[in-house]
């Protein structure tokens, strides 16, 4: 593998431990007509393994990065903050767009995430219709409006 070369794929990586929330997010993405594939991992450690091609994802090409990471905060093993820190701390992944998708609007969560340069912080609404609207907004923004970082970086 070649460090510093990244290939941005069209995959959206969803880091979510709650089955219901994962299914609802998938449903909402469908309802919002977002065509990009959604890959789901169940905890912080799995997210790290996926992104850095380790453990059960050792076969993956680590230079292939998702288009955007939707990151829950309260996760088993490694928390969302730990995952964000790991992403920002690695040359390969430091520019990867990360959207925090969580139930919490606690000040310390928001501060922690913005301090670690998350790209966006979205609170999951309880109302499903609003949730679909949020997912649609996210999908449209990160797949069509936003321009990802260049594939070759320093």
């Amino acid at each position, binding site marked *: 593998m070649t460090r510093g070369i990244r290939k941005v794929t069209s995959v959206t990586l969803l880091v979510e431990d709650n089955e219901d929330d994962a299914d*609802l997010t998938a449903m909402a993405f469908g309802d919002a007509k977002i065509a990009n594939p959604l890959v789901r991992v169940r905890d912080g450690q799995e997210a790290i393994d996926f992104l850095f091609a380790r453990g059960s994802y050792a076969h993956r090409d680590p230079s292939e990065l998702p288009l955007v990471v939707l990151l829950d905060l309260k996760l088993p093993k490694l928390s969302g903050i730990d995952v964000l820190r790991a992403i920002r701390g690695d040359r390969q992944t430091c520019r990867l767009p990360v959207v925090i998708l969580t139930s919490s609007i*606690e000040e310390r969560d928001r501060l922690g995430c913005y301090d670690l340069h998350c790209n966006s912080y979205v609170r999951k609404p309880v109302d499903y219709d609003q949730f679909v609207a949020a997912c649609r907004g996210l999908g449209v923004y990160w797949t069509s409006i936003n321009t990802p970082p260049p594939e070759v970086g320093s």
Partner: protein
Amino acid sequence: MIPKDRKHEGVAAAHRLRDPGHDFQTLADSVKDYAIFTLDAGGHVMSWNTGAREIKGYGELEILGKHCSQFYPPEDREAGKPEALLETAARAGRVEDEGWRVRKDGTRFWADVVISSLHDHAGELIGFLKVTRDLTARREAEERLRQSELRLRLLVDSVKDYAIFMVDTRGQVISWNRGAERLKGYQPNEVIGKHFSIFYTAEDRAEGKPAQILALAAAEGRAEDEGWRVRQDGSVFWADVSMSAVRDERGHLLGFAKVTRDSSERRRTDRELISRSAQLSAANQELETFSYSVSHDLRAPLRGMDGFSKALLRDYSEQLPPQARNYLERIHRAAERMSELIDDLLELSRITRAEIRGEPIDLTALAHETVSDLRKINPDRNVNVTVQPGLKTSGDRRLIQAMLENLIGNAWKFTAKQPVGRIEVGAVRSHHDPEFFVRDNGVGFDMAYADKLFMPFQRLHTGTEFEGTGIGLATAYRIISRHGGRIRVESEPEKGTTFWFTLGASP
């Protein structure tokens, strides 16, 4: 007894007395601070110096030949003191006396008197030399000192809450006040002469603490200590001890003054305070962990309820009878309401934990902002709002704003059924702090329920009449009490409601 008036003999004797002493008389004359004069054997004045004139007030001429008894106060004359002194001087060669004497003008002075007998070559008594010194000033100073010492001793002795005592340079107790008796249980006779280490615990004695504090006080002038001390009955108390070195004018160590206070009570309250604040911070920590978990975990199941009931409606709509669709709609509403409750509860908890920052606040401007936000949300409402200009306070801007939003929002909500809602925000000045008010002409309520109003989740109206979670006023109440203020309410059904509040110290 020596006869009092023997002038004719006296003159001759004076010559004899003066004769050998020309030099002496010249010398004596130069002395101003001592009255130096001679008496004949019978006690009559034979010579007189400058000091005698100064001290006693008589000129030489008016006193020569007079009997010395006139220098004494009447009570001494009656008691025969002048003669007795002369007799003693004649017999023993010298007598010393200290006592009141009388000046020419009748005033008294405290005198130190030495009378020496004078003899001729044959050894026969020829008279007396009398040296008198005016000690009035010294006596007065001594008296003042004695009085001040007495006052100090009474003062020290009357102190009951502090043991005040002295130890000598080796640490042996040399004085003991009432407070020491009370505090330590020893009577003065039981403790004076004992070493002060008896007040220490065995461990402290073994560690050499008593010697250490003496050494420190000697070196530094003063030493302080806190620790367990032992009473006579063996019980212990927590003592606050101060030991000061006492030195004379030349710096020689005379001993140590020791002041001991029983601070067991203070120690107990201090420790209680520490333990309370630890408990409080643990409780706060727990509350924070709790709300963090609520914030993250309690909403996910609601999203599930709402999302999957919507999915049912969407995917299986044709298979569902109207009743089933109604149930799903109610699940949706219940989830929504629960979500609001959680948010309000978290807000209440955040306010309870929030650190209060103090800054000047323009309450008038904040009220206008709040009203303009409400107008944006409900543009069709017809509400007449007046805000008194120049309302100022100090406190945490974010919290005060939340409080105003709750109170004005409350007034906004409960005036919904009036054709024209009226809301008034203002203040009256009572004593020093202004008492602010938010008044409306809304539905009001029966004052019998007023005490329920500020408790979380208490509502005086049903959800179908007016929506709300019942946390708004509890939040306002908590914000106001966290600012050291008070809130009260006046209301009448169908007339309206006024909330009155203070915010502690005004800017």
